[in-house]
């Protein structure tokens, strides 16, 4: 089985689906000849031509608005927003249009597209190349939100996202674009949306995370293990709809949970997960559910490693939760 990084795996998924389905088109800024600023679409222009791999004007609103129109026509656009920090000119189209087409037309119209966009910090990108805006899309009824953490899942989840009947925001953690490597099967397979992955089983503390911070959670879990604390680590993979069953089953087993995410703490997805745990597993809890997250500040440049919830911040919380 070939070894791939995230970039290669996503590229492989796009190529596979574009060969299989001539309705799939890729559009965005620099996605064509240069293959994207992270090279995720490299080589697609040469293979599929500029009618299917389209360099657009520098206009996120135009990219998503036009992609919605293409989708209404019956194409399956996979637009790229160069950084999720730049998605906001298209927010009106995503929130007011994309998310509501099926609902507001009584099912007459479906606007099916997958918006791919790099997310998260750790690349010294400052405010505008580092943010994690997932909860701003989860809060909008009608969108599915996906965030893979390894090449196998990235390919399988992207193929599942393109074939899913609903619009999908596909967040790609840019910090691990090349750092995360692994075996990726050649050819077709999917990883189902809405299913989390238990990366490590354990009996003392549940850690729920997604994106690049999953690796920090795993590192902290290993260090906690050296202290006799056995952690279970859950990678959500699909952020919405949430795999609530996997989370609740784990919390019922451990009674203790730490949620780790890069996005700011307040109104982050972690808060929603804590609420759901309180609603569904309150009597199983041995400690207050805890969060280790980014702070409620804009994403800083020089101090980004202090901002991110890295393993050195996760470990003390695991210990505190375990000993509560």
């Amino acid at each position, binding site marked *: 089985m070939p070894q791939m990084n995230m970039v290669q795996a996503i590229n492989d998924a796009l190529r596979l689906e574009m060969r299989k389905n001539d309705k799939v088109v890729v559009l965005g800024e620099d996605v064509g000849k240069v293959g994207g600023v992270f090279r995720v679409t490299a080589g697609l222009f040469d293979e599929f031509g500029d009618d299917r791999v389209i360099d657009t004007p520098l206009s996120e609103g*135009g990219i998503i*608005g036009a992609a*919605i129109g293409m989708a209404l*026509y019956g194409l399956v656009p996979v637009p790229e927003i160069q950084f999720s920090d730049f998605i906001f000119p298209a927010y009106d189209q995503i929130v007011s249009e994309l998310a509501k087409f099926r609902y507001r037309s009584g099912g007459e119209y479906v606007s099916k597209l997958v918006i791919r966009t790099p997310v998260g910090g750790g690349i010294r990108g400052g405010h505008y190349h580092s943010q994690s805006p997932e909860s701003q899309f989860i809060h909008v009824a009608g969108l599915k939100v996906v965030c893979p953490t390894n090449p196998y899942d990235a390919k399988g989840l992207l193929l599942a996202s393109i074939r899913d009947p609903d619009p999908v925001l596909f967040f790609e953690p840019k910090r691990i674009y090349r750092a995360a490597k692994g075996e990726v099967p050649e050819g077709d397979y999917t990883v189902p949306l809405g299913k989390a992955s238990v990366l490590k089983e354990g009996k003392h503390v549940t850690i729920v995370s997604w994106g690049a911070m999953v690796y920090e959670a795993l590192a902290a879990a290993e260090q906690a293990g050296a202290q006799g604390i056995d952690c279970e680590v859950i990678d959500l993979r699909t952020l919405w709809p949430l795999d609530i069953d996997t989370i609740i089953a784990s919390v019922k087993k451990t009674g203790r949970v730490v949620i780790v995410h890069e996005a700011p703490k307040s109104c982050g997805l972690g808060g929603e997960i804590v609420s759901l745990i309180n609603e569904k597993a309150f009597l199983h809890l041995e400690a207050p559910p805890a969060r280790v997250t980014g702070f409620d500040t804009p994403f800083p440049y020089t101090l980004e490693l202090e901002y991110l919830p890295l393993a050195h911040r996760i470990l003390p919380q695991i210990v505190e939760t375990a000993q509560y």
Partner: protein
Amino acid sequence: MSATPTTPSQKPAHDGSAKNGHAPAALVSEEVIRVIRDDGSLDPTWDPKLSDERIVELYSWMVKTRIVDDRLVTLQRQGRIGFHIGSLGEEATILGSAAAARPQDWIFPCYREFGALLLRGMPLQRYIDNMFGNSNDPVQGRQMPDHYTGKPWNFGSVSSPIGTQITQAVGFGWAAKMKKDDLATLVYFGEGATSSNEFHCGANFAGVFKTPTVFLCRNNGWAISVPAARQSASKTFADKAIAYGIRGVRCDGNDLLAVYAATREAIERAARGEGSTLIETLTYRLSGHSTSDDPKAYRKEAEVEAWKSKDPNTRLRGFLEKKGLWSAEKQTALEEQTSNELAECVKVAEKAAPPTLESMFEDVFAELPWHLKEQREQLLKGPRAKGHGH
């Protein structure tokens, strides 16, 4: 349809003008296209040469649209429907343009174009059901009145945000062009929407990718209370086409035949692969923005009166009567027939059940996820609100 295509070469007056110093020839002309002259004769330059029957048919739709408008305002005042946003005074713009689109062309509406949808064949009952938001409404009362959908008639789905349909219409036409399908998109918006980012994005993409899009800007003078002059320092709204490298034309928006001719030409250019056109129709919103608006607060009655003298329905009726194609008797018969049909539709819509409680949760996603199932159960088991029939 009996329109004879007119080409720019037949109209020497239409080759653009450098008078304003920046308009390259052939992109935007200063000409305002008019067909129906004040004396009731037709200017042959742009006459779309519609058959008498077709003109009478379109006039009838203008009358029907106005009767429906009038009745819906009354229903709102009586508290029987919640809202209406109409097209009083803009009937020629809406019906003339929609009629000029070919059946395979798709219409992306703003929110004043119910007349276009009725012209395309949507049953009046379906529209009235939408106004009441009942269980027969295809949208299941999920949207406020006048937010209809018309896919069977190649007609989009209405939303409230300004201009969002513009980029979508461009993308839709672009996709058709990629697939080498012979269709254009006709997208409606008011002059206020030319200030939106969506207009800019859409017109820019249309220019760059030469999409088969007809941008129909209903310049009706007002965006709620803000006059057209406050939207732009451009001399005309059609002038904006220059910056995007697309063609811009202006026409008398209260002249059905002028709107038809301008739209038809734009559609045919699009179909020939010659790209997009921005049409500015000069018309006037005789009513308030919607039933929630009182225009007396911001505009003078004299202005409204001046535009009433250019009423598109009156103008076309005068033309038809002069030609012996219309009469007071025909007018009365049409009005009675439409009023009766409408009364019947209202009766049926008022008797229809409200949407089911379950319908609130359907169509958010293709399949109901666990959290919506839970919330649906909570609603069904919980206490009922008063006043909607459940």
